[in-house]
């Protein structure tokens, strides 16, 4: 039981950026643009957040939160490239996304070199401090699980899941967004501006992926380095598919991966598993995810028109 009490918050902290980034991927794909650039966008977000936090920490205690905002802003600008290439230039979205992923590494390190004269940002002092919710933190069991020393991105992730669900399924904007991802020609015939909706999808995706990258760096790392994001954007993409392009599915998939990761950390301490090589535990989160994907996927159908170049003349 006491193991569970420490393990669950660890899983939450680990899952939060994955969930937020996967929600970002959802907005983009729902609008019909495949976004494999999540990884690169997260890097840009993480870099901007770390840089601004380093600069502002001597001035204000809210530096970490301003850093997150900076990460979101920078990531949105960066994701504009993807929107421009995919919508205006009608480029292959996978190629454009790959280009962004490659560009992000070089760009962030180059900017670090200019700002900090080294290949990484300076170390910030605390980044984002963990929060305890007054009152709720003292409730037995539930308090330590959800409200004591929890990293702020976890609450953001939960909030964003509900918000995304509301926006995508309960607002006119969401309906239009989804229709552009399913059948853009039909959407256009109803007077929806497909290009504009797709720009919106990619930009929201950039904002969320940027927030995820920022949250990752500010809560898990001490500075931004080229390895800070280390593939989390791709895991988020996996969660998006696993979660069937649905916000609650994404939440479930993200938490599942977080728990798999946390259990791999604890598994080696269980006496009868002592003989198992460590590598098996390292593999665990990925194997479990792959198995779950096979078992639960059934028909994992994404937005029909995702990845397709919008051709207004096609019928």
């Amino acid at each position, binding site marked *: 039981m006491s193991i569970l009490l420490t393990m669950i918050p660890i899983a939450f902290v680990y899952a939060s950026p994955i969930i937020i980034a996967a929600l970002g991927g959802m907005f983009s794909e729902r609008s019909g643009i495949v976004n494999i650039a999540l990884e690169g966008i997260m890097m840009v977000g993480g870099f901007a957040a770390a840089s601004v936090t380093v600069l502002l920490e001597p001035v204000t205690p809210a530096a970490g939160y301003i850093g997150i905002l900076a990460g979101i802003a920078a990531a949105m600008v960066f994701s504009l490239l993807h929107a421009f290439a995919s919508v205006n230039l009608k480029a292959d979205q996978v190629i454009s996304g790959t280009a962004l992923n490659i560009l992000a590494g070089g760009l962030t390190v180059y900017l670090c070199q200019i700002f900090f004269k080294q*290949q990484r940002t300076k*170390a910030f*002092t605390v980044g984002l401090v963990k929060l305890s919710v007054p009152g709720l933190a003292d409730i037995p069991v539930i308090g330590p699980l959800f409200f004591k020393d929890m990293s702020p991105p976890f609450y953001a992730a939960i909030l964003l899941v509900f918000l995304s669900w509301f926006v995508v399924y309960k607002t006119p904007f969401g309906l239009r967004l989804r229709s552009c991802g399913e059948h853009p020609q039909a959407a256009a015939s109803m007077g929806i501006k497909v290009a504009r909706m797709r720009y919106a999808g990619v930009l929201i995706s950039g904002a969320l992926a940027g927030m995820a990258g920022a949250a990752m760096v500010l*809560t898990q*790392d*001490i*500075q931004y380095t080229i390895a*800070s994001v280390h593939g989390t954007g791709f895991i988020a993409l996996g969660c998006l598919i696993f979660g069937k392009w649905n916000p609650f599915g994404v939440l479930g998939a993200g938490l599942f991966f977080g728990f798999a990761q946390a259990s791999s950390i604890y598994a*080696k301490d269980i006496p009868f598993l002592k003989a198992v090589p*460590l590598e098996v535990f390292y593999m665990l989160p990925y194997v479990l995810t792959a198995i779950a994907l096979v078992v639960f996927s059934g028909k994992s159908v994404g937005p029909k028109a995702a990845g397709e170049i919008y051709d207004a003349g096609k019928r």
Partner: protein
Amino acid sequence: MKKRIVLVSLALIAVSALMAAPIRVGLVTDVGGIDDKSFNQGTWEGVKVFGKEQGLKEGEGIKYLQSTADADYIPNLSTFADEQLDLIIAPGFLFNEAMLTVAKQYPDQKLMIIDSVVQDKDGKMVPNVANAVFAANEGSFLAGVAAGLKAKADGKKIVGFVGGMKFPLIENFEVGYDQGVKAVLPGATILSDYTGSFTDAGIGQAMAAKQFGAGAYIIFQVAGGSGNGVIQEAKARSAKKDIRWAIGVDKDQYNDGIYAGTQSAILTSMMKRVDVAAHDVAVMTMNGKFPGGQVLTFDLKSKGVGLPEKNPNLSAAIVKAIADYTAQIVSGKLKVDSRQ
């Protein structure tokens, strides 16, 4: 008379210049760059000290080339070899293959690799490559002494170790650390985890959260980028008055652990003195004693490993105890276990 003195002194200068035949030393960095605050920068500082001692100018007697990709290693090493520098230094195991290739192409070129050993495909040493490695177990022993005494002073009994990948190079840190902790705090519990990654800060942080959650007071992290997660967790807790410590590795990481004013969560750091290694081998080469094909182990005795000179988080008593243990190890009275 005056003229003669001038002439004689001129001649003396000429002779002394000939005797200490000035050598030229080049450093090729890995992709981390010359200012990485780690191996590249440390090695360059060692070369610079050598240059200063010998009056060599930067860009002439001592110089460096930065690599921007792994593919640059061979061209960069070859560039210096074409310039016939007397010694070419490269830090880190990433250079193993490039150095082997260049050593074969330029059999007369003296090369040096730091923190790794270059062998050809038959497992034989390469005669024109000097290899510098570090007795990490000895430095880690001192880190363990620091952790054990700090825990004892604050009434704690549990400390931890977080490694990157479980192989002998890293385990060597752990055995030294364990021995050091137990030497001063025999009843201590030492938690141990390996992240399986040198880049994933999230796992490092999660493992630190696990160990701190289980009561660990101090964690020695030997996990590169994953270790940053350990430092972050120690900082985050300490900033909320739940004081916990991390121990730095490879270089003095004090500044990475600052969470308020000048207060750092880094108790101390186990440093590999790549600067000492680079400097010493440059001197040996200058004196015609280039240790080609040999493995030089830089240990406490040769000041190749150790804790930083300044440890603001350690009390005078702990610093003194560390000095005592250092003396015992250097004199050979105390033997530190190793795993290699």
